[in-house]
Structure formats: C-alpha cells, structure tokens
C-alpha cells in the first residue's frame, strides 16, 4: 500500500498560514498576507492533485475496489478504551475528490480575493480566516472518524461565522453571521446526539468500522426501537439533521441566504462550493450505514432533499438580490444531491444515485463557484447586489459575461457541459427508485434553467442603468479564476466518475439514459426560452404574470415567510416565553426565596432584640410571671 502520510500537510499548511497570518499579519503590509495564504494554498492544492492522481490513476483500484486507507491516525482524546477521538487522514474516493474540489475552489478564491478584497480594511484578517476555513474543511473531509468530523464541522462553522461577519461594523452582517452560526449549531446538536446514540450502540467512532459491511451497524440486529424505528435509524436521522443544517436543507435553510452578507469570494467558497456540501458529504461518508442498516433514514434524506430543491427553486425565481438568487440556487442544487443520495441503493449500478450525487457535488462546486465569482465581479463593478440596478453589462464586462453564460448553461443542464452529465445521472437514478422525486427533480431542472436565465438576462441584457461610473472588466487576477473555473465547468463532466467514486468503491459502467436525458434537456430549454421571452428585452410579461399569481409570487418573494416564522419562534417564544420567564423566575422566585430567608432572620432578630428593651420592670414582670407559671406547671400540673 502506498504511503499517503504526506497528505497530512494538506490541511496543516493552511493551518500554519492561519497562525502565521493571524499572529503576525498586522506587522506586514496586507498584501503579504494575501500572497502567503495563496502560496500556502497553492502547495496544498498541488499536494491534493498529486494525491488524486496517485490514488485514482497510479494506484488505482485494488482487487476492483478503491481502498479506504487510514494514512495517519493518532489518538487525540480518549473517552474509554474503545471510544476515542483520533485525528488522522482518511483516504478514499470521496475524500480525495473533496480534496481536489476544496483546494481548487479555495485556491481560485484566494487568487480572486487578491483583486476583490484589495484595499479592504482587514485584508490580512480575511486571508487568515480563509486559511482557517481551508484547514477546517480539509480536516473535515479527511476525517477518519465521526468525532473528528464533528470537530472540523464545528470549526468550519466558526470560520463561516467569522467570514460572514467579516464586515463586522455592518449590523446586517453581524446578524447574518449570528444566524448562520446558531442555526447550524442547532443542527449540530442533532449531529452530536446522533453521534452519542451511534457510539453508544456501536462502541466506535471510526468510519472504517462504521461503514464496513461486517461492522457493528450493519450487522447489528435492529435492537431497541423507538416509534417503530431502530436506534441506528434514529441516530442516522439525527446525524442527518446536522448535515441538513450545514447544507441548508429545509427547514434549517434560513441562514444561507443571509450568509450572503459576507464578502462574495467567501460566498463562492463556503456557501456554494465547499462547506454547504458538507452535509452531503456526511451522508455519503456514512452511506453504507444509511443504505443498508437504515433505509428509512435514507428516505428522509431523499425527501428532504427533493423538497428543498423545489422549495428553493421556487423562491429563487422572484429574488432581486443576485447573490440571494445564487444562494437559493445552491440550496436547490444541494437538495438535488441529497435527493440523489436518497434514491440510491448500495453497490454497483444500484449505487448510481450515490455516484451521481458526488458527481454533481463536483461539477456544482465548479460552476457555482464560477457563478459567485462572476457575481462578485459584477458587484465589484456596479456596487450593488440588486439586479434592478444592473442591465446591459455584457458590453462592459465581456469575460465575466462569457464565463457567467457558460455557468448558467452548465447549471441549466445543457449538454455537453458538466452540469448536464451529473444532473442526468441524478434524474436517471431517481427515475428508477422513486418516481415522485423524479418528478420533483424534473420540474426543478426547468425552474433552474428559468431563474438562472432570468438572472443572466437581467444582468447582462436589458437596458443600461444609471451607473455611478462606467462598469469595467475586473482585473486579470480576478478574471483568471473565472476562466479557469469556466474551463473546469465545461470539461469536468467528462470525468469518468462511475469508475472512481462509487458507493462500494467498485467501478461500474454508467451510461446516459436517453429516456431521461432528452426530456431534461427539453425542459431546460423551455425554461431558458421562457426566461428569454420575459427578460431579454424589457417587457411587461413578468409583472403581469406576477399579478396573476399574486399569492404565490408574494410567498416566493418573502421566502415563504420562513425568516419571520423563525424570528417569531426565537423572539416571541424562546425569548419571551422561556428566557425572560427564567430570568424573572431566577430573580423573583429563587433569589427572592434566598432573600426571604435572610429577611426572616433579620426580622426575627429585630423582634427578639425588641424584647431586650432595657425596661427593668418589663424584665421583672417576665421573671415573676414566668416563675409563677413555672411553679404552677411543675408543682401543680406536671407532678400530679
């Protein structure tokens, strides 16, 4: 077996950069930090590519299976003899794939930010956080055990928090970062409970043991059950809640649109390409457990994913803020991936959904990062996030325009761009397993094409707006990542994913199902056509259409009022009916009880003090009457 221990450096280099920039960044010129971070990531990316090439092409499958290799592992914290958190590096197809995705996108974002963030206050801080994020995300995907994953899970959460709140003087950014952290934290609670339940049942955290076919999960007979589902199922559902939180699945999605308050490169990296797919990655990581031991949990995953993808697509149609459109589109696409996992079986061609999900994860990372970076370039030029402030930009920003168009076509699923291939596999998998989900997926494909082109036309076509200064193309340091990602978006579809990343590690032959491919292309084209009619030239159709379905339009525009519901629950219910009463109870009941004890003692002592009045005759009176009473008692009453 090959020695992969050098992969340890892939996460450690960004960590070192984080510490270096974080501790000494303020001593140098800001740009030094940027170069240092970028350089570090370049090395990491280089190592990742080497690893991928070695793993997939040089070493290849052993006995027809891609092995799961623990390259490095050291005990970090011991709970019991069997339960201990190890820190290590796990090499298997999905982790290697994720290494490539993360380092690539992260490197592009690092480069891009050199231009985008130029002159910002806190430039060094930005790069420090980016490095921290890269470290955490790489640690997450390389995790050898579920607790290590949880550790890095939290770390990516906090990096995301820090980056969303990068403009910490802006109240909306602060609120968004807080929201993101708390919502995902809430989900992580589910994750943690899931881990506790799982570890209690199986007595291990180790992924290799958990997912092996003769491991404790899969071999364990259902055991105790609760509400008809086994403990394993429950724990996997809880773990999925964690994943759903990070991946912004319904109903834990509300943080993602707000997270767009962060700098745009961050949105591209964290909230489009890498961190938000952690949930998908988590389910994929435990996939054998889901697929074999807890199919019910997998169904939950599928339905949640399917519903989210539809739900988000509907909202995306009406949003004005271009980053929000992209955010909902991200949600929708991740829902797609989840759905795909949900409709997958285990092994061989049954595992098509799994493969498709990973495939889509890969391609999505490329084109979504591209879209966000493109959006960033546009925002950089226009100084606004709203598409109502844009229009006719195609002549000012040709490179951005072309790359953005490519990305739109990719996400819409037009062959032969990468999005087509991955989406096609997903739909094929859904068709075989669950027609309802297929229907949803099919509809979402059309909606996606529609809203993406609505976005595209609104930005690049239509009339010029009144710009403060003439928009101009971004500098080369920003356009290079766009071009690179555009190329990746175009060609990544041709990667032989079914030969590399499969549910059981064994390659299989996937073929394009014309029965699925043709309708999906057709519906995408229909979506694009509608968008072209409505938005290419200024027209009144959108307004009239909106008028005719007013209720739905309004619901979509307001994101189905989910923010308001959450706000209601947190502010009105938790604050007003739990926290405040508890605080009140503490002050006015518990504390008052203690004070009452004190008051009783003081008052009693004051009263007793009053007895000692200094009045001689009062004492004498008491003395005499007491003697009389005592004599009466002892001589006459008790003795007789």
């Amino acid at each position, binding site marked *: 077996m090959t020695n992969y221990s050098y992969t340890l450096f892939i996460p450690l280099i960004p960590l070192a950069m984080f510490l270096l920039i974080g501790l000494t960044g303020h001593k140098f010129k800001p740009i030094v930090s940027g170069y240092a971070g970028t350089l570090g990531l370049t090395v990491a990316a280089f190592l990742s590519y080497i690893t991928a090439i070695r793993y997939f092409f040089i070493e290849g499958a052993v006995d027809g299976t891609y092995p799961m290799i623990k390259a490095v592992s050291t005990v*970090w*914290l011991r*709970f*019991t003899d069997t339960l201990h958190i190890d820190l290590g590096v796990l090499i298997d197809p999905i982790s290697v794939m994720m290494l490539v995705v993360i380092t690539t996108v992260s490197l592009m974002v690092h480069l891009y930010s050199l231009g985008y963030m130029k002159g910002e206050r806190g430039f060094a801080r930005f790069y420090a956080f980016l490095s921290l994020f890269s470290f955490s995300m790489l640690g997450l995907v390389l995790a050898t055990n579920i607790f290590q994953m949880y550790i890095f899970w939290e770390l990516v959460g906090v990096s995301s928090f820090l980056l969303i709140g990068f403009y910490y003087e802006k*109240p909306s950014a602060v609120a968004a970062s807080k929201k993101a952290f708390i919502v995902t934290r809430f989900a992580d609670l589910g994750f943690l409970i899931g881990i*506790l339940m799982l570890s209690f049942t199986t007595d291990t955290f180790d992924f290799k043991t958990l997912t092996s076919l003769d491991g404790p999960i899969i071999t364990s007979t259902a055991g105790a059950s609760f509400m008809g589902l086994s403990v394993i199922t429950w724990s996997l559902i809880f773990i999925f809640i964690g994943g759903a939180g990070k991946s912004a699945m319904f109903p834990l999605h509300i943080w993602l649109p707000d997270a767009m308050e962060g700098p745009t490169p961050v949105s591209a990296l964290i909230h489009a390409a890498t961190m938000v797919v952690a949930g998908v990655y988590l389910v994929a990581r435990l996939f054998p457990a889901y697929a074999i031991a807890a199919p019910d949990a997998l169904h939950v995953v599928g339905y949640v994913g399917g519903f989210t993808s539809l739900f988000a697509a509907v909202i995306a149609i009406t949003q004005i803020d271009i980053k929000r459109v992209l955010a909902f589109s991200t949600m929708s696409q991740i829902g797609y991936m989840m759905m795909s996992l949900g409709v997958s079986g285990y092994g061989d061609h049954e595992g098509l959904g799994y493969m498709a999900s990973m495939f889509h994860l890969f391609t999505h990372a490329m084109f979504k990062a591209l879209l966000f970076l493109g959006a960033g370039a546009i925002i950089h030029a226009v100084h606004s996030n709203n598409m109502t402030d844009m229009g006719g930009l195609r002549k000012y920003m040709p490179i951005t325009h072309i790359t953005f168009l490519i990305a739109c076509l990719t996400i819409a699923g037009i062959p032969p761009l990468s999005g087509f291939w991955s989406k096609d596999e997903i739909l094929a998998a859904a068709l075989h397993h669950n027609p309802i989900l297929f229907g949803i997926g099919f509809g979402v494909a059309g909606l996606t094409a529609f809203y993406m082109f609505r976005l595209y036309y609104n930005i690049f076509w239509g009339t010029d707006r009144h710009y403060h200064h003439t928009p101009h193309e971004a500098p080369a340091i920003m356009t290079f990542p766009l071009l690179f990602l555009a190329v990746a978006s175009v060609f990544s579809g041709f990667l032989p994913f079914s030969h590399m990343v499969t549910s059981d590690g064994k390659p299989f032959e996937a073929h394009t199902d014309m029965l699925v491919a043709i309708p999906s292309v057709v519906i995408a084209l229909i979506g694009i056509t509608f968008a072209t009619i409505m938005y290419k030239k200024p027209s009144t159709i959108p307004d009239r259409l909106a008028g005719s379905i007013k209720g739905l339009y309004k619901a979509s525009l307001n994101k189905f009022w989910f923010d308001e519901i959450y706000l209601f629950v947190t502010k009105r219910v938790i604050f007003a009916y739990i926290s405040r009463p508890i605080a009140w109870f503490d002050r006015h009941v518990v504390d008052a009880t203690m004070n009452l004890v004190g008051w009783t003692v003081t008052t009693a002592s004051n009263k007793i003090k009053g007895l000692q009045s200094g009045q001689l005759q009062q004492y004498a009176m008491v003395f005499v009457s007491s003697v009389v009473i005592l004599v009466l008692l002892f001589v006459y009453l008790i003795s007789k």
Partner: protein
Amino acid sequence: MDILSWFVAIPVLTVMAILFAKDLKQTRIISAIGMSAQLGLTTWLVYAYLAERAAGNAAAWLFKYDVTWFTSLNIHYTVGVDGISVAMIALTSVVIFAGVFASWRTDYLPREFFISLILLSSGVFGFFISLDLFTMFLFYEIAVIPMYLLIGIWGTGPKEYSAMKLTLMLMGGSALIMVGLLGVYFNSAPAGQQLTFNLNEIAANGIPVVAQQFFFPMLFLGFGVLGALFPFHTWSPDGHASAPTAVSMLHAGVLMKLGGYGAFRVAIYLMPEAAQDQAWIFIILTSVSVVYGAFGAVVQKDLKYINAYSSVSHCGLVLFAILMMNQTALNGAILQMISHGLMTALFFALIGMIYGRTHTRMINEMGGLMKVLPFLGVAYVIAGLASLGLPGLSGFVAEMTIFVGAYQHTDLFHRFVTIMATTSIVVTAVYILRVVGVLLFGPIRDEHHLHLTDATWWERLSTVTLITAIAAVGIFPLWLSDMINFSLRPIVERIVAAL
C-alpha cells in the same frame, strides 16, 4: 519542608512580604514575583508528577507528607497529590497568576487587596493538596472568608449586599459540610477503632450505608452551593457582578471548583452507595442548572450577569457529570472544571478590562468595541468560542467527554437527561453570539468609546496566559485527560465495586 507544603507556604510568604511593601508599586511587584514562583513551582510539580508516573510509580498519591496536629481527634496535616489535584493546582496557579496582573492597577488599599487575594489562593492550594478532611475543611474556610472582604471593600454596585449574600450562602453550605464531615468522621471506622479524618483510610474502612444515606445529601448540597447548584446559585450573579475583576476571576475560576472537587472527592468517593441511590434527585437539579443557567443568560444585559449565569450552566455540567459516576463522565467533570475555570477567568478579566475603560457593563450601552479595542475584542471572541465549545479550545474537550461519558449509561433516564443537557450548547451559542454581536461588532454606539486605548502590557500578559492555557488544553487534551484518567481509575473501580 516537603514540596506540596510550599504551595501553601509561598502565598503566605508573599503575604508577609507584602506587609512590608510601601506602595502599590512594591506590592504588585512582590505579588507578581510570588505568583510567578508559584506558577514555576506548579510547572515543576506537573513535570515531577509526570516523571514519577513515567517511571512507573503507580501509587495513588504522590509526594505524601503527614504530620499529626491534633492528636486526640486524630487530625492530621496530610498532603498528597494525584492527577486530579495536580490538574486543579495547575488551574489555580494559572488563574491567580493572571489575576494578579489583571488587578495591576488597584488603587484603593492595594496592599490589603493583594494580601486578601493571595491569602485566598493559599486556602485554595491547601484545599487541593489536603488528604485529611478536617484540614481540607480548614483550608476551604480560609478560601471562602476573604471573599467577603474582597467583595465588600473593593467591589462595585451593591457590594455589601452581594458580599453578605455570597458569604452567608457559602457559610450555609459550609455548615452542611461541617455536619457532613463530622458524620463521616464518626462513622469512619468500625466500633472501637480509632476514628479518622483521612480520606483514604475512610475509603478503605467504608461508611455504613445508613449513615451514608443521611450524610451524603448534606455533603453534596454543601459543596453544591459553592458549585452553584440550582436553586442555591443565586449568590453567583450578584456576587460576581459586585466583585472586583481578580476576585471574580478567582472565584468563578477556582473557588467554584472547590465545590465540584469536594462533591467528587468527599461526597461521591466516600459514599458511593448513597450517591447511587440519591443521584437522580441531584441529576435533575443539575440538569436544570445546566439548561436554566444557559437560558437565564440569554436575556441578561449586564456582562457579568451573563457570565455568572453561564457559570451556573457550566458548573452545573460539572456536578451533572460527577453524578454520572463513570470514568468518562468523571474525567469530563474534571476537564470541565479546568476548562471552565480558565475561560471564565478570561471572561471576567476581559469584562473587568472593558469596564475599566467604558465604565459600564451594560451591553446595550456599548457597541463596535472591536474597532477600538482589537486585542480585547479578539480575546473576548476567543473566550466566547471556548465557552460555546469550539474544538481546539478547552470547552469542547470537556463538554464532549461529559456528554459521551454521560450517554454511556445503560438506563434511559441518564441518557435522556444527557440529551437535555446537550441542548445547552445551542443556547450557549445564542447568548455568547448575542454578546459578541452587540458588544464588539456593529457600529460604535457611544462616541466616547472612540478614544479608548487597547490593552496594556499587564492586561495582555494576563489574557495571553489564560488563552494559552485554554488552547493548550483544547489542542493537546490527551496528556491532561490521561493524567486524570490514571488517577480516576482506582476511584471509579472503588465506586463501581461498592455498587
């Protein structure tokens, strides 16, 4: 003199030296030297302890030393350390060291202040090294009583009230402890044999179960008061809010740990049968503490109140874990004591520093301080992240150990309350982020705050010491955890054997 007694002697010597100091300058230099020596000694102790263990010395207690000081009642001055006490001593040294620097600029009666503060720490050290229950109690009282003066004289706000409340409630706890200890003493040996206060001898003899049932709740409650057990925690918000910075640090950071440590060392260790029988009552109370404290913190407006309630929650977790009575949870309890000690000390230090600049602790009167006070801001964020259990900082290690340990129980009740307790991590995130969001982020709310100056060197030293310790525990928890585990094993075996 034996090595451990120096831990008591150095503070006492420092206090005596301070008596000859002329002004603030000399006082603080002497204090700093004394506490640095203490920190150095602690480092040496940790090293020596680990070296002994590495050399294969498997005795439960190391560096033992024994003198009889009251023959007729068989009271000894017996000292010794195991992994748990070494950890607690290390915590105390770090916190007192940071505390001295945090109160660098005490201008009102500085000599008296430092004398009380350091005297208090000598009590704490004595408590952690004692193996004789009576001596332990003596040191406990030494640690608790200067608190009254420290809050009553150097405090802010309704300081007399708070000091009185705190002292009286803790004295109430002490009274229970005293009764419990006497109960233990009179049941410490079979009839006709010499009664003893020695922890190990009592453990070896065992206490009759009937007596246990009676004295366990007294001892547990008595220590629980100091450990902020619901509903006896209300001294904590007022006390902490009124106390001066270093006192809050030491009190929340170390003194509250005396409660947890005592509950574990005395109540649970000596009376496992009763503990097993009655644990459910206290488990309910502690899990209430955990959740209640967290929710209570959400709506507070005063920084110190927030932290005090947060302490209630975190210390509740300590007692909660102790009551789970298995190796992992107990290990978690000790880790949590250390972790909470460090981070709450950091919090209070920072709150003191911020208060010293803005002259308010109301979060809604401040805002955007990150911009003017970047060092303190970053430190506050780190403290907050430690508090909400971010991996890589100490809180995570401790909480996870507790949760995993507590969940290992086979019966449903324990697992259910564990899940209840885990919800606190979300609520913790809510209040921590709320404070960070309002206090540090956003626009600057008060124009006067624009001209604030960032941390001075002593403030930096104080916070960096604590942050380093937090990160050290958080990043390399294994040595600490293994050290504690090693010493816990015989204790847990004894507890389990008794059941």
